[in-house]
C-alpha cells in the first residue's frame, strides 16, 4: 500500500491510494533509465508479481516479487523515469531485463584488478553497479544512474 510521509492531507492520500491500487499492476517493474509507464512487459518477462508500491519523499518505490524468491525494487524519480534498481534474494534478477540499455555497459566494464567472487563494483560514466553475496545466503545489489538521483534522496535508501 502507498504510504505518504510528507504530510499531505488525507483526502489526497486516499485518492492516490485508489489511483495507485488501480494502476499498480500496470506500472510496476520499470527498467533502469526508462519511463515508469513503459514497464508492463517487465513484470510479464519476469513472471513476477507486485508486492507493493510506495511513495516516499522524493521518489516512488515498486517492490516486485520474482518467482525464485528474489525481491526486486525499482525507484522512480518525480520525472517519471527509473533511476535505480536494487535486489535481494537467492539469485540476482536477470539484469539484462532490469537494466535494459545499461546492461551492455556492465558487460564491457573492466573488473577491479583484485576482484574476488563475493563483491562487485562497476562505475561506467553515470552508471554505478554494486553487489555482494555468497552461495546459500543469496545476493544483494543495486544499480543507479548517479546524475538521475533526485535531490534529497540518500544513497543509503537505495537498497
Amino acid at each position: 500500500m502507498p504510504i505518504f510521509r510528507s504530510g499531505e492531507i488525507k483526502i489526497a492520500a486516499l485518492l492516490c491510494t485508489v489511483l495507485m491500487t488501480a494502476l499498480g499492476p500496470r506500472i510496476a517493474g520499470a527498467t533502469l533509465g526508462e519511463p515508469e509507464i513503459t514497464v508492463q512487459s517487465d513484470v510479464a518477462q519476469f513472471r513476477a508479481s507486485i508486492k507493493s508500491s510506495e511513495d516516499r519523499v522524493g521518489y516512488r518505490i515498486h517492490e516486485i516479487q520474482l518467482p525464485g524468491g528474489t525481491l526486486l525494487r525499482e525507484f522512480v524519480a518525480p520525472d517519471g523515469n527509473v533511476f535505480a534498481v536494487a535486489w535481494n534474494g537467492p539469485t540476482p534478477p536477470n539484469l539484462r531485463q532490469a537494466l535494459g540499455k545499461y546492461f551492455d555497459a556492465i558487460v564491457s566494464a573492466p573488473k577491479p584488478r583484485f576482484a574476488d567472487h563475493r563483491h562487485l563494483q562497476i562505475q561506467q560514466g553515470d552508471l554505478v553497479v554494486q553487489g555482494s553475496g555468497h552461495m546459500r545466503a543469496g545476493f544483494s545489489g543495486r544499480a543507479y544512474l548517479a546524475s538521475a538521483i533526485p535531490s534529497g534522496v540518500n544513497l543509503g535508501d537505495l537498497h
Partner: protein
Amino acid sequence: MALMRALRMGLGAALCLAAISCGGGGSGRGISSGPPPPPAGNNVASVIVDQGPNNQSVNSLFTSVTVCVPGSTSSCQTIDHIQVDTGSYGLRLLAPVLTLTLPVETLASGNSLVECTIFLDGFSWGPVVTADMQIAGETAKSLPLQVIGDSRFPTVPANCSGMGMGKAEDTVSAFGANGILGIGPFELGCGNCDTATHGIYYACGTTCVETVVPTAKQEPNPVTRFATDNNGSIVALPAVAANGEVTLTGSLIFGIDTQSNNQSGTQTVLTVNDLAELTMTFNGQTLANSFIDSGSNAIFFADSAIPTCTTTDTDFYCPGTTQMLALSIQGANGVMVNNLTFGVGNAQTMLNTNQTFNVFPELAGPLPAGNPGTFDYGLAFFYGKRVAVAVGATSVGTGPYIAF
C-alpha cells in the same frame, strides 16, 4: 608496475614449466605444479596463498585435487590452484585445464543436468559431471561436480548470463583459479533446489529449461562424501607480518575429532544459521548477516569514517594511517567471542609497495551494496588460526558451525 607484473608472470611461467617437467608422479596427463601429494591415508592437503594462475590474486587460498573418471585408476588428472572456499559448496573445475572427459549427469527425463553458478561478479555455465575425487589420502567416489565452460554445452541461457552481469567466468583468467573447492558448513549450496527452481539448474536436451534436481545429483561439499573424516575440515595457516608476505603455506585437514591431528581441544564453537551466517558487532552496530569466508580476499564492512581509495583500487579502503579496530562474533548458539582486533591498512600503499606480495592481512574494503547488516571477514581471518568448518557432529558440537 607493468614491468613487475611482467616479471612475475615470467617467473610464474618458469616455475610452472619446471614443475611440469618434474612430472608430478602418477597417472594422467595433468598439470601438477602444486606440492606433491601426501602419502595415502593422510588427511592433510597442502594449501598456499600465492599469485594464482592468473597472476592477479591477493589473499586467495589454493590447493590441488585429483579427479579420475569414475571407477578408473588410470584416467586421472591432478589439478593445482583450486581455490579453497569456505563460502561455497561443491567442486567446480575450469574446462580449459581439464583433460579428462567426465560423464555428464542425466535426469530422469534423460536430459543432461547443467548448472548456472552465480558467483555474484559473473556466471559460470557448465554441466554437472561425476568423478572420483582424491585429495590428500581422502577419496569421494562418483562425486557430482561442475565443469565450467564445457564445450559440450556451449549455449548459455539468456537468463543465466543476465543474472551474472553478462560476464562469463569460464576461463582461468576470468575465474582466477583452475577450479574451486567449496567446503562451507553445509552439505549443499542450495537449500531447496530439489523442490524449487532459482535459475541455477537446467535440464538440457535440444534446449535448456530450468529444473528441480534431486539432492543426490547436486554438487555437495566433497568432504561430506569421503569414506572417513567426513564431518568437516580445518584450515590451518601461520600468522603473517602486518605488511604482508609473498606467499603463505598451510594445511587443509579433513575430519574434525576423527584423528589425532584434527582434535577440537578447547576451540570455541559458533554455530551458523541456515544462511551460513553469524552475528558480528562492530562500531556499536549489530550485523546479523555476517560471515567468515576464505573466498573473500579482504575484510569487507561499512565504516564511513575510513576513506575508500580513490583513482585506483576503489573497492578497498585507504586510511591515512593503519586503523586498529575490533569486533565481536556471536554464533546462532549464543556463544560470543569478544574483542577480536584487526588492522586496516592503506590498500594502495600495500599493493604498490610490495608488488610481489600476495598475502595482505590488513587489506579491507567497503561493502559494495546498500547492505548495512553484513561484516564479511575474508581469508585474513584464517591467518594465524586453525579454523574448523563443521558440517556434521564432532566431539564438541554439531555442524553447521565454525570453530577457532
